[in-house]
């Protein structure tokens, strides 16, 4: 056994393997093969395998229309929206570690983030990224419209895209409250006041007064959709925890799920659109 080992070591040194040989040995060893399934060299087969055998790359087809790859056609806005979403996920998680969603801490945690972290720009990246994502999603939609890319067979993917637009705005809107400053509180107050006027479901909405049993109004200020949204009659601590959970978990999960469907359907519908 020891002799064998010695011999093996001697052999290895005798060969004095070139970097290429090491690379090859790794790329053709069991570990590499079991992970990547295909070799390293740049052959058409490996180019195909790189996409097919990677769960992230397989969002793409193996080949794409040359016209669809051009930036002048796609403006890269769909990809940019996705990039910003990932970016916001990462910075958002980092921010969560420094933030407690209660009325007495929320604002001061944000202040601490600004005051005590040297060169701290997590919140900046998160906030500007969020604004940029809203714009990127609009422009993506604008591009898809202008190229008629919603036409059959892509109708339903446009519908999912519209839902994702709404989700993006909801994400931005729910996040707006979290710094718990005047800007946040009153923007959300203005935005959520609309809910009071929801027909039948808001107590200041048309039809709500018709929903009554024996003269008792079922939809009142303490039972309508506005109350359910805020967890109270006005924006308060109960609203903060609700928006926090919606912003940090619920809406992102919905968004990620819909994105998976969106990307999947782009592929199933024949990749990036192009003239027939």
């Amino acid at each position, binding site marked *: 056994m020891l002799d064998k080992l010695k011999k093996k070591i001697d052999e290895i040194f005798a060969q004095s393997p070139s970097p290429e040989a090491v690379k090859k040995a790794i790329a053709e060893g069991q570990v590499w093969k079991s992970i990547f399934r295909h070799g390293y060299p740049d052959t*058409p087969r490996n*180019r195909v395998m790189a*996409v097919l055998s990677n769960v992230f*790359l397989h969002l*793409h*087809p*193996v*080949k*794409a*229309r*040359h*016209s669809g*790859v051009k930036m*002048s056609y796609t403006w*890269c806005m769909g*990809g*940019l929206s996705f*990039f*910003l979403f990932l970016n916001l996920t990462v910075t958002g998680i980092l921010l969560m570690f420094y933030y407690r969603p209660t009325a007495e801490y929320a604002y001061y945690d*944000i*202040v601490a983030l*600004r005051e005590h972290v040297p060169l701290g720009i997590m919140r*900046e*990246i*998160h906030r*500007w*990224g969020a604004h*940029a994502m*809203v*714009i990127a999603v609009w*422009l993506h939609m604008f591009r898809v*419209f202008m*190229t*008629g*890319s*919603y*036409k059959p067979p892509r*109708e*339903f993917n446009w*519908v999912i895209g519209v839902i994702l637009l*709404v989700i993006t*705005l909801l994400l931005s809107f729910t996040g707006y409250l979290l*710094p718990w*400053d005047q*800007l946040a*509180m*009153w*923007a959300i107050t*203005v935005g959520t*006041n*609309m*809910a009071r*006027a929801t027909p039948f479901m808001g107590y200041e*909405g048309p*039809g*709500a*007064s018709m929903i009554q049993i024996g003269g008792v109004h079922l939809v009142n200020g303490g039972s309508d959709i506005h109350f359910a949204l805020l967890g109270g009659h*006005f924006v308060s601590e109960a609203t903060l925890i609700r928006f926090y959970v919606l912003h940090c978990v619920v809406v992102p999960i919905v968004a990620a799920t819909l994105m998976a469907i969106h990307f999947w359907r782009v592929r199933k519908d024949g990749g990036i659109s*192009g*003239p027939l």
Partner: protein
Amino acid sequence: MHYILDAIDFVLQPWSYFLFSVIAFWAMIKYREKWTEPAFAVKLLWGAIGAIVFSMVYSVHFREIASLPDNVPIFLMVFSVGFFTWLSFRQGVLNDRRIAQGQPPIEKETSDKKVYVWPDLVYIEFIATVVAGVVLLIWSLCLHAPLEQAATPAWTPNPSKAPWYFLGLQEMLVYYDPWLAGVVFPTLIIVGLMAIPYIDKNPKGAGYYTFNERKLAIIPFLFGFFILWVTLIFLGTFMRGPGWNFFGPYENWDLHKVVVLNNVNLSEYIWVRILGIGLPSNFLLREIWGFLAVGFYLIGLPPLLTKKIPLLQELLEKMGVVRYGILIFLFLSMAALPIKMVLRWLINLKYIVAIPEIFFNI
């Protein structure tokens, strides 16, 4: 300079702002061959930059508003929407010329050629990611995220504005009650957007930029996007001050500005001013004219229009009753905002139907 600023403030009113927007929109469609020329576009760009620099330099008020950190994205939006509008029209115009000469659109030339996603597309994505990351990083280093005083229910800021992307809806509140402006219209916007692929049965123009082949789809969509969304956001940001009163872009936001509101309901117009017999006490009777107007608008107008306009006639034939009906309904819903705006400006109309008893005002 002072006089120029004042003149602009004087000229800009909600109605004139809207009018200028519509004229600009019309010109954009009409003269697309002209302004999509790169040389002309560069002039437009310099004009826009010049206007902003001019405003920033000569108006302290404008500078203050424009440099609020949360308003910076609005400039980003305006410029990027402008640029990409130009880009899409440019490519559309070029393709339309080719099509007119019997050639296929330019995208067709390379659409049959397939490239490997790895590395060709992944490479582009990688570069775009890096560029976007760097831009975001620089932006974040240069501009602090805003943080005002701690939230308190005790003091309401004036104006209280929604996040910028919802300012179009907040502007709608001037003309419609919350149940319409805040609930029904947003729902219809979403539903309408979703319905587009099922309504637009035009098989042409899929997968390339074009204008001529898809006029009927592009014009209403862009009208909604530009006139009823983007310009209203701009208006809401720069020209709505305390009390949601209208201010010129260079006009100081005077907390005590008094705007005379002499808006009148349709019921009063007809029962009191025209018929001269006073308002009936039963609210259904009182609002009978409003109901008739809305009913005619939604039910009577579509067949009438269809009969009178050959284009619509043709559309009906092509699309079938269901699709056509949905299209007309969505179209009338979209037109409801500008119509109410114009009625407000022309005859100070407040509500068409006004039943505050059950919060049912239109």
